[in-house]
């Protein structure tokens, strides 16, 4: 090929035509806080939506007015707590039809001055509102004050977040992007505790909730302190699971338990067995890793083991957070038991080579076969389209994940090579006999050393933020597909029941014709039984269909939020990296200029 190269200087890669403007405005406080906060999606939820929700009475009938002391509210938290009430209302599972009624009347009053609160709340506490467990005017105020305090301590065990959060509240209320109703509430902040003005807000917020459908929850879990227990091949790593909550269904407000990895898997098994019948999307736990675990068993000291344990800890934390943020799963007693109980029976059926393990494999195989045999007659194209979408997305996420993985590896390589180069530069600087140059070279070696650290951190962020996000969602999409499968299975059950019913009817007809009255009675009973089953299964199928739809929508919302928040966090980490890089080179420049 003929390539005509003009007389070009070497450094043409270097200069940019545009000179960037350095006077970009500093970010608002809010964002700086977001930036400072801990790395959990919960935190993101809290800050963006301001608050955690309090379920007042999560199950029909199980409502005892919580007895909370009256702490003093930090200023500004009031507005936020009120929002939670409304949101929770929407999130309550179906058995709350009665509570819907009083809301409209409250909503009218919600527009008004927040000072009216007390009376309104009392009115709210008739019919089903009793279910909210606020029989006396004092209680709700107390409840809210308690809520407020709890919300004031958002994420897990970091007490220094309190101040940040309080600040965030103030900023949030001044956040221009919030809608008008929110502004009303914010403006009502100021008067402290025991004011049931809070009570007024719920209804308007509830309406809000339906429009905005925010995602709020008030159980906060953290997985920390991985510790190796035992020795040799029987060793395992125990994690501390801490929960903070104000839900009444839990025995106390803050508690911890020590759990090992198989416990988490066991929880997943139990949930799948039960909840999958309803079509829920159950967040899957992180995968088992024989190689990783063996290394840890042998010794926890080398960097790859440390990384492995950290990766697992973070994944387990996200797993639990997803579970508790799911309204249905949170109600499951198994989840409660997992979080609360001191000693959990060993989940042996999670071991790969156990009898239960084999059983699982066989069931899976048979399921797959049965799925293939009866092709579902899809009346609703929504499901088919969604399924395709999910499939496609999973493929693309896999591709992206592979590339991000490659990036992580290359950065680690870069890190190593930079370190080696730094040493080599230092040696060169030593042998250089011009003192200024020698010093400059040593400085360069130091800069490169710092760069190595930077690359190390960047690789960490690449991995823990970006790659793990993708891996999580690849697994979650698998779970989504699983719940679609559940629906298909429900349909199959229904169809089978129908065909059995048909057969029974034919049998009855035959008996009728053959005139055997004794067997006839039995046949009639069987028919009745199967008719009931058919209706039951049909209802099940419809119900699953609805749940699946709801779940998928909720999942998509979560996913959008999660991706956005994590990617922004990742970009911010990159940003920080660049800032530090600038500092390093700025420090080096005068040294280089000083060479004479």
């Amino acid at each position, binding site marked *: 090929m003929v*390539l*005509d*190269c*003009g*007389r*070009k*200087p*070497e*450094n*043409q*890669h*270097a*200069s*940019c035509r545009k000179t*960037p403007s350095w006077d*970009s405005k500093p970010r608002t406080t809010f964002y700086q806080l977001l930036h400072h906060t801990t790395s959990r999606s919960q935190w993101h939820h809290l800050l*963006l939506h301001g608050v955690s929700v309090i379920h007042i009475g999560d199950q029909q009938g199980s409502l005892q007015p919580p007895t909370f002391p009256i702490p003093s509210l930090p200023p500004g938290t009031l507005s936020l707590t009120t929002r939670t009430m409304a949101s929770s209302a929407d999130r309550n599972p179906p058995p709350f039809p009665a509570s819907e009624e009083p809301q409209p009347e409250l909503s009218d009053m919600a527009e008004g001055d927040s000072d009216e609160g007390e009376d309104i709340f009392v009115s709210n506490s008739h019919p089903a509102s009793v279910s909210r467990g606020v029989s006396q005017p004092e209680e709700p105020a107390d409840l809210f004050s308690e809520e407020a305090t709890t919300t004031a301590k958002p994420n897990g065990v970091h007490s220094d977040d309190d101040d940040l959060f309080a600040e965030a509240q103030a900023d949030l209320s001044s956040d221009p992007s919030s809608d008008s109703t929110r502004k009303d509430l914010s403006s009502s902040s100021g008067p402290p505790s025991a004011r049931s003005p809070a009570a007024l807000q719920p209804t308007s917020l509830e309406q809000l909730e339906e429009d905005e459908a925010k995602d709020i929850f008030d159980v906060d879990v953290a997985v920390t302190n991985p510790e190796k227990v035992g020795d040799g091949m029987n060793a395992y790593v125990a994690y501390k699971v801490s929960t903070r909550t104000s839900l009444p269904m839990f025995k106390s407000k803050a508690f911890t338990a020590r759990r090992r990895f198989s416990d988490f898997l066991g929880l997943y098994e139990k949930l799948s067995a039960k909840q999958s019948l309803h079509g829920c999307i159950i967040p899957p736990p992180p995968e088992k890793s024989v190689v990783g675990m063996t290394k840890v068993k042998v010794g926890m000291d080398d960097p790859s083991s440390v990384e492995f344990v950290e990766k697992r800890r973070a994944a387990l934390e996200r797993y639990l957070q997803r579970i508790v943020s799911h309204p249905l799963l949170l109600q499951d007693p198994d989840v409660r038991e997992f979080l609360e109980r001191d000693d959990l029976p060993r989940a042996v059926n999670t071991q790969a080579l156990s009898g239960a393990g084999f059983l699982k494999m066989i069931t899976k195989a048979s399921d797959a076969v049965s799925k293939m045999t009866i092709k579902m007659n899809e009346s609703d194209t929504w499901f088919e389209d969604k399924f395709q979408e999910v499939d496609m997305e999973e493929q*693309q*996420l896999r*591709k*992206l994940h592979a*590339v*991000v993985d*490659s*990036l992580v590896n*290359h*950065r680690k*390589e*870069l890190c190593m090579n*930079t370190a*080696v*180069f730094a040493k*080599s530069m230092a*040696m*060169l600087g030593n*042998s*250089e*006999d*011009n003192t*200024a*140059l020698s010093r*400059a070279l040593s400085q*360069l070696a130091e800069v490169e050393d710092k760069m190595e650290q930077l690359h190390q951190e960047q690789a960490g962020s690449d991995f823990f933020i970006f790659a793990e996000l993708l891996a999580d969602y690849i697994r979650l999409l698998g779970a989504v597909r699983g719940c679609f499968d559940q629906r298909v299975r429900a349909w199959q059950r229904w169809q089978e029941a129908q065909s059995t019913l048909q057969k029974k009817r034919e049998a009855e007809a035959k008996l009728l014709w053959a005139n055997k009255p004794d067997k006839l009675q039995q046949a009639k009973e069987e028919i009745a039984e199967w008719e009931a089953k058919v209706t039951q299964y049909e209802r099940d199928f419809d119900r699953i269909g609805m749940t699946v739809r709801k779940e998928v929508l909720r999942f998509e919302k979560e996913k*959008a939020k999660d991706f*956005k*928040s994590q*990617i*922004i966090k990742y*970009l*911010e980490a*990159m*940003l920080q990296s*660049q*800032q530090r*890089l*600038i500092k390093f080179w*700025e420090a080096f*420049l005068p040294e*280089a200029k000083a*060479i004479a």
Partner: protein
Amino acid sequence: MQQEGLDDGPDFLSEEDRGPRAVNVDLEMDATLQVDISDALSERDKVKFTVHTKSTLPNFKQNEFSVVRQHEEFIWLHDSFVENEDYAGYICLVLCLADPRPDFDASREKLQKLGEGEGSMTKEEFTKMKQELEAEYLAIFKKTVAMHEVFLCRVAAHPILRKDLNFHVFLEYNQDLSVRGKNKKEKLEDFFKNVVKSADGVLVAGVKDVDDFFEHEKTFLLEYHNRVKDASAKCDRMIRSHKNAADDMNRIASSLYTLGTQDSTDLCKFFLKVSELFEKTRKIEARVAADEDLKLADLLKYYLRESQAAKDLLYRRSRGLVDYENANKALDKARAKNRDVLQAETNQQLCCHKFEKISESAKQELIDFKTRRVAAFRKNLVELAELELKHAKGNLQLLQSCVGVLKGNT
């Protein structure tokens, strides 16, 4: 003199200072003799350089003229210096390239593979990869040009070598110099010569030098050379990793783009923006790697070879010393036997003279080498730091504006 290349990708922007001078700073750009490579053409196997000279020296027919030269002719010129005994006392100017062709081959191969794999990628991916490969090819090409130019400039700046007749012929003679590359026999001879030389070098290096200056220089150069070699290799590896990471970001950008074009939801728009960011940030990262390559890696490579050349100079001097001492011994023996005294005397005088000449010029050369080295490092390190800062600030701004936009939308 600066013409834009035809295949200029968007990445190659013009830069104010002259490239090859970047490595060697204090070349006297006096008006008496200025040499540069104004153009270059790549034709299948060969590269043709247009050497442009501006001179006020009387021995040239014109004040400004150009000739076309090929790589082999450069090698010929270099070798003529090396083989010239008179120039033994000078650091033989380094022709920094062994053979440019392999690099081109690699790029051409990749381009071919790309053409074959056309069906398996999307149109965007294909065009993008093609652009990248072309850019790579162009980069290597430009480096080659630069290296040849540095060589010529060094010769032109050297007070003695610039007067060399061969050099003038090289610059002026506008016909083909008809130098043929070394045939197999000559290459073999060279190889053996090198073997002998290195063995000899070891012997000679053992001779302790009386002169402190040279003794010091010897130890210094030995150590320095080794360390520069080490640093150069590691620098290359580091830059390679950096380029790999930048490539990965490119693929991430395309992947995100595919995700973003699935739908028109908020999330998809988000993906598209992030994909754009990755594209831009990757370009900056690639430029950072390229600049590091230019300012640091090339610098180290150059001084690796220069320090080798300096070592060679010292070797020649030591060789001269040994010859001188041998001549002395021969003279003594001849005097003792009273035979061939005159011959021995003249021989001894010759060796003495040669040795002294080399010593003198070598001393000057080595001092110059030091000065040049310090200056070159200073220039390159300063430029490296400035470029790193520039790019980091650009990157930072990019990230800040993107994050601002993304947060504003959520």
